[in-house]
C-alpha cells in the first residue's frame, strides 16, 4: 500500500514541484527587477540631488567670477570698501568655509575663514602659489570654473581637526578693463551636502565613491573620505573602498558578493549640461572628479526582501505535500477498498456460479426424476389398465358362469359351462404371468447394468431365428457411430428379440426382407435405429396404441400384443426412449434413444 501511496504522491507532486520552482524563479526574478527598479530610482534621485547641490556650488563660484572688480582691486588698500557689501552675502552661505582672492602670483590678498561661531572672519594671508588648485586655477580663462576633488581640509600641511571634507571652487576674476587679476577660491564645506546624500530614503546602503572605488561618503561608515586616513594609525580602521568588479563590467545593476548593486556614474564636468542650454552664461566646468553613486542591497536585506518568495514557495509546497498526501492516501485506500470489493464480488460471483451450476445439476436431476416419474406414472397406468381391464373381464365371465351354474338345474347344461370356466381360469393364469413379468420390469431390482457389445449381442440373437440363418431374412449391421453400450443385457436382448421377431413376422413375401441395425450419435446421446422393409403400419390409425398392451394390428399372425409393450417398458425402465415411424407397404423404423 505505502509503495503505491508514494508512487501516486510522487506522480502528483513532481509536476507541482516543478511548477512551483518555475513560479518561484519567475517571482524571484520579478522581485529582483522590482528591487532594481526601486534602487535605480533611488540612485537617480541621489544623482539629481547631488547634481543640484553641485550646481549651486558652481553658480556660487561663477557669481564671483562675473563681478567686474575695480582696477587695482588686488593691490588697493581700499578694496575693503568694495568687498564690504558682500560680507553679509558670504556669511549667509553657510557652505562657505573659506573665501579667498588670490592674485596671479598665488598669494592671497583677501581671506575669510568661518570660525566656530559661524561667522566669516578675516584670516591670515598665505602664499598658496605652490598649491595645485592655485596653479590650475590661474590657468583658467574667462567663463571657466575649476572644481577640485573632495578632500579633507589641511591647514599648514596637516588635516584639520575635526576632519572637514571640502571641495574647492576656483574661478578667474577680472577688473573693469578685463584684466585678469587673480582667482577666487571658495572652500565649500561638504559636510552638509554629504549628510544630505547619506540621509536614508531606503534601507539599502549608499556609497559615493571615486574612480578608484574609494568611499567618499557612505551611510555605512562614520567617517567621510576615510581612505585618506587609512595610514593614520590613530584612526579606527573602517571600510574605505569597495572591491567590486561589477562597476566596470556590468550594467547599472548586478549581483555580486550576494548583494544587489545599483550605480550611476557622476561627473562634475557634465553636471551643467544636465540642466539644458537655457542659461546665457553657462560656465565651463573643469574637474578631474568622476564619482559613482552606489546603492547596495546587502545580503541580509536582500534575503529579507526576497524572503516572502521563499516563504510562499515553502508554504505552497507544504500545503501541496499535505493535500497531495491526503489525496494519494484517500485514492490508494479507495482503490484498495475497490479492489477488496471486486475480490468479494468475484468471490460472490464464483459462489453464485457454483450455486447456479449446482442448481442446474439439481434442476437436471429434478427434470430427470420428473421424466422418470412421468414414465413411472404411465407404467402404473398401464399396470392399472392391465389389472382393471384384463383381470376384470375373466372375473366377470367367471361370475356370470357361476351365476348360471347356480340357476341351472340341468346337469348337462352345467357341463357345457365347465370348459368355459377352464378357459377363464387359463386366461387368468396367462394374465397373472404377464402381470408378473411386467411388475418385474417395474421393480428393476434385479437389473444388472453392464457393458455390451451390440454386434455380438445381435449375432447371438440372430441365431434364435432360423429365417436369418437360411438367408430368407437379412440382418445388416451399420454400427460405425458406436458399438458398445452400458445397459441391461437381459432387456437389450428382449428389445432386439422383439423387434427382430416383429420384422420377420410382418415381412413382405414378395421382396428380399431385411432389417438394418444402425447406430448414431444425436445430441450427445447414443441412438439405435432399427429399420425393416416389411409391411409397415398405418400410424394414423394405430399410432397411439402402438406400444400398448394386448394390441395387435395384423391378422393372420401369431402374438398376443405384448411384445412392443414390453420393449417400451424395458427401455423406459432404464431411461431410454423408443419412437416409431412407418409407411404402409414400405417398412417400419424404430428409433431408440439411450
Amino acid at each position, binding site marked *: 500500500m505505502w509503495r503505491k501511496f508514494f508512487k501516486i504522491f510522487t506522480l502528483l507532486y513532481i509536476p507541482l514541484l516543478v511548477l512551483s520552482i518555475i513560479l518561484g524563479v519567475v517571482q524571484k526574478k520579478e522581485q529582483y527587477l522590482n528591487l532594481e527598479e526601486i534602487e535605480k530610482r533611488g540612485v537617480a534621485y541621489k544623482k539629481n540631488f547631488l547634481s543640484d547641490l553641485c550646481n549651486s556650488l558652481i553658480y556660487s563660484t561663477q557669481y564671483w567670477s562675473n563681478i567686474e572688480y575695480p582696477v587695482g582691486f588686488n593691490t588697493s588698500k581700499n578694496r575693503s570698501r568694495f568687498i564690504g557689501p558682500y560680507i553679509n552675502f558670504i556669511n549667509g552661505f553657510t557652505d562657505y568655509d573659506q573665501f579667498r582672492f588670490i592674485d596671479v602670483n598665488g598669494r592671497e590678498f583677501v581671506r575669510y575663514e568661518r570660525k566656530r561661531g559661524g561667522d566669516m572672519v578675516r584670516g591670515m594671508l598665505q602664499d598658496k602659489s605652490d598649491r595645485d588648485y592655485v596653479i590650475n586655477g590661474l590657468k583658467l580663462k574667462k567663463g571657466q570654473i575649476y572644481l577640485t576633488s573632495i578632500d579633507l581640509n589641511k591647514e599648514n600641511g596637516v588635516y584639520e581637526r575635526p576632519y572637514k571634507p571640502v571641495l574647492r571652487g576656483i574661478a578667474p576674476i577680472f577688473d573693469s578693463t578685463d584684466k585678469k587679476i587673480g582667482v577666487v577660491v571658495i572652500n565649500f564645506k561638504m559636510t552638509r551636502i554629504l549628510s544630505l546624500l547619506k540621509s536614508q530614503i531606503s534601507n539599502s546602503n549608499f556609497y559615493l565613491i571615486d574612480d578608484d572605488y574609494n568611499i567618499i561618503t557612505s551611510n555605512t561608515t562614520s567617517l567621510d573620505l576615510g581612505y585618506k586616513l587609512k595610514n593614520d594609525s590613530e584612526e579606527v580602521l573602517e571600510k574605505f573602498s569597495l572591491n567590486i568588479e561589477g562597476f566596470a563590467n556590468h550594467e547599472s545593476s548586478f549581483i555580486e558578493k550576494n548583494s544587489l548593486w545599483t550605480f550611476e556614474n557622476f561627473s562634475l564636468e557634465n553636471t551643467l549640461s544636465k540642466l539644458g542650454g537655457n542659461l546665457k552664461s553657462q560656465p565651463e566646468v573643469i574637474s578631474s572628479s568622476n564619482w559613482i553613486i552606489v546603492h547596495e542591497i546587502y545580503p541580509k536585506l536582500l534575503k529579507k526582501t526576497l524572503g516572502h518568495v521563499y516563504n510562499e514557495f515553502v508554504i505552497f509546497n507544504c500545503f501541496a505535500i499535505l493535500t497531495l498526501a491526503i489525496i494519494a492516501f484517500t485514492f490508494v485506500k479507495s482503490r484498495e477498498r475497490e479492489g477488496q470489493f471486486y475480490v468479494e464480488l468475484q468471490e460472490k460471483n464464483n459462489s453464485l456460479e457454483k450455486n447456479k451450476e449446482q442448481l442446474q445439476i439439481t434442476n437436471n436431476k429434478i427434470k430427470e426424476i420428473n421424466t422418470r416419474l412421468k414414465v413411472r406414472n404411465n407404467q402404473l397406468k398401464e399396470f392399472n*389398465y392391465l389389472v*382393471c*381391464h384384463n383381470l*376384470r*373381464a*375373466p*372375473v*366377470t*365371465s367367471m*361370475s*356370470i*358362469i357361476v*351365476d*348360471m351354474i347356480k340357476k341351472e338345474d340341468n346337469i348337462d347344461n352345467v357341463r357345457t359351462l365347465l370348459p*368355459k370356466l377352464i*378357459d*377363464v381360469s387359463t*386366461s387368468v393364469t396367462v394374465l397373472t404371468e404377464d402381470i408378473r413379468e411386467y411388475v418385474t420390469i417395474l421393480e428393476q431390482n434385479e437389473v444388472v447394468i453392464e457393458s455390451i457389445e451390440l454386434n455380438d449381442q445381435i449375432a447371438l440373437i440372430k441365431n434364435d431365428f432360423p429365417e436369418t440363418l437360411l438367408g430368407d431374412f437379412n440382418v445388416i449391421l451399420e454400427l460405425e457411430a458406436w458399438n458398445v453400450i452400458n445397459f441391461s443385457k437381459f432387456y437389450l436382448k428382449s428389445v432386439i428379440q422383439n423387434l427382430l421377431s416383429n420384422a420377420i413376422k410382418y415381412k413382405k413375401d414378395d421382396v428380399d426382407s431385411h432389417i438394418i441395425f444402425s447406430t448414431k450419435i444425436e445430441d450427445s446421446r447414443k441412438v439405435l435405429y432399427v429399420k425393416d422393409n416389411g409391411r409397415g403400419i398405418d400410424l394414423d*390409425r394405430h399410432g397411439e*396404441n402402438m406400444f400398448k398392451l*394386448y*394390441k*395387435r*394390428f*395384423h*391378422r393372420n399372425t401369431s402374438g398376443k*400384443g405384448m411384445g412392443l409393450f414390453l420393449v417400451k417398458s424395458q427401455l423406459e425402465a432404464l431411461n431410454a426412449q423408443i419412437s416409431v415411424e412407418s409407411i404402409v407397404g414400405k417398412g417400419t423404423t424404430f428409433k431408440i434413444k439411450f
Partner: protein
Amino acid sequence: MGKENVLIVDDDEIYLYLIQRVLRELSNGVEIYTSTDGEQALDFIRKCDEDKQLAPKVILLDVNMPFLDGWGFLDEFKKLKVNFDDKIFIYLVTSSEMPADKKRALEYEELTGYIVKPISEKKLSGMLTEVFSEMRTQ
C-alpha cells in the same frame, strides 16, 4: 319395425358366449351376431347395408380390441353413412372407468350409452327392455 337384431363386438370369446346365452334367455326372438374386433364388425355393417334384414338394432361395443378398437369402429362407422330404416342403439361396453374415456364417449352422437363391465344379467335385461320398448314406440 325390423327384427330385434343385436350385434355384440368383443374380443373376449368367453364373454361373447356368455352374453349370447343371457340374451337368448331374456328374449327368444333376438337374433344375435358377434364380431371379435372392430374390422369384423364394420364388415358386418357393410353387409347389413346390402341386406337390411341383418341390420342390428342394438350394438354392444367393446373398446379394447385388436386390429380396430371400439373408437376406431365408431370413426369408421360415421364415415360409412349407411342408411338403415331404424336407429341403431350403440352401447359402449368397457371395463374402463377412466374419465378421459367417458369424456371421449360424449363426443360421439352415435352412442346411446356407456356401460361399465361387468355387465350383469339384470343390467343387460334392463337395457334390452328399454331399447326394445323404445323401438316399439317408434
